[in-house]
């Protein structure tokens, strides 16, 4: 069957078998391998992508079900050479070691901050509670997301001018 979707701002049309899972469509057909394929059982959350702005586990969604919808993967987070504050936060606060869970963690963080720009640490922990990190013990991930919340303009020097410009970019 033929499906179409907007992925990271690009409209794509593709022929898929109905049984193809979104994670495999993204990785194998679109070759966007930033989305990781982990437990395959809806537990680990490394395959999280945003569907119409909401995090979903792409191993448990059919590509066919996304026909007509909008998807954001980790490749769509940065704006050109400018990292999303969440990506910057993971660098600043060492939010990753092996990096396997990172794409899913960052997308969930982005959706959380879009919904709630100033989350409490407990709200951050709840938001990522469907995702597993076996390296960091989560503390640095929580700090990374807090960093992003505190720096909505990313790593730019915090003058009024550049901040407002950056915010427009991420709006």
């Amino acid at each position, binding site marked *: *069957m033929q499906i179409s979707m907007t992925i990271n701002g690009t409209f794509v049309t593709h022929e898929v*078998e*109905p*049984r*193809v*899972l979104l994670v*495999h469509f993204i990785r194998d057909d679109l070759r966007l391998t930033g989305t990781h394929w982990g437990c*395959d*059982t*809806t*537990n680990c*959350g490394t395959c*999280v992508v945003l569907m119409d702005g*909401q*995090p*979903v*586990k792409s191993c*448990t*969604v*059919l590509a*066919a*079900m996304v*026909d007509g919808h909008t998807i954001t993967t980790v490749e769509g987070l940065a704006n050109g050479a400018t990292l999303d504050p969440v990506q910057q936060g993971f660098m600043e606060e060492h939010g990753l070691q092996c990096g396997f869970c990172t794409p899913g963690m960052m997308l*969930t963080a982005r959706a959380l901050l879009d919904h709630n720009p100033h989350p409490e640490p407990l709200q951050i922990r*709840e*938001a990522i*509670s*469907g*995702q597993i990190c076996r390296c960091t013990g989560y503390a640095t991930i929580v700090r990374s997301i807090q960093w992003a919340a505190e720096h909505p303009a990313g790593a730019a020097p915090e003058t009024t001018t550049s901040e407002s410009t950056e915010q427009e970019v991420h709006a």
Partner: protein
Amino acid sequence: MQIPAPFEYVRASSVDNALALLDRHGPESRVVAGGHSLLPMMKLRLARPDWLIDINDLFELDYLLVDTVPNNGRVLRIGAMTRHTTLLESDDIKRLFPIVIDAERVIADPIVRNRGTIGGSLCQADPAEDLSTVCHVLEGVAVVRGPAGERMLSMAEFHRGPYETAVAQNELLIEVRVPIRDDSGSAYEKVERRIGDWAVAAAGASVTLAADGTISHVAVGLTAVGLDRNVTEVEAVLVGQAPTEQLFVEAGRLTSLACDPLADQRGPVDYKRHLADELTRRVLRAACRRAAASISDITI
């Protein structure tokens, strides 16, 4: 790699269209809503439908509204396609049925809750499904539509047992109606091995208090301990009594005797009976506290 067996996919555009598709494609067709139970089963080839009918475009079934309906009085009408996240964030639910909030907080994880629906949860009828117990306890009514029209089923009629409901192959669960009782409180508590896991055991309770502070109506239900119905054994003991710790202890004891858990990797039988007892006491305590809080001049 887990990949479902081949199937044909079709997206329904309305409830009538979904019913027509179910009728056309027959017993080997299945409806998919959030898909977070069905797709894992299809990936494990435990389910192999020939046709998958996607009802995610049925926005007409995504609603929450307080209404007055003939024979049921005031009810909260919950559309079958209402997502767990929507239930968890609803002010009406917070105010009227805190048991739903208690349960939703411990159903899977926030990301799964973005997709999963109340209709899907009830139709899956997993013995460890939290919302089934919640709907039993709140004495919800399932509205099921088919070619012959709509029928209303009590949860006892709807829920036939593990993974089995009264919804026929050519029917669709449309709505759950939950009666609104004044001066009531409700609560749910679950013990799980890790966050997002199925219950080792869980209990829910709904309590209505009379003007003199005694219990005028009560329902207690259990999850994952082999009881697909409310614990009617405790109702006779509780109704008409003032809510006291002694009464909750007796209710817990009766509940632990009424359930019929199986030993599995989540724990032995005696442990699960202990949980049924302890969790029943806790949810009754919380439900009575919440009911009392809704009546300013009664204190417990």
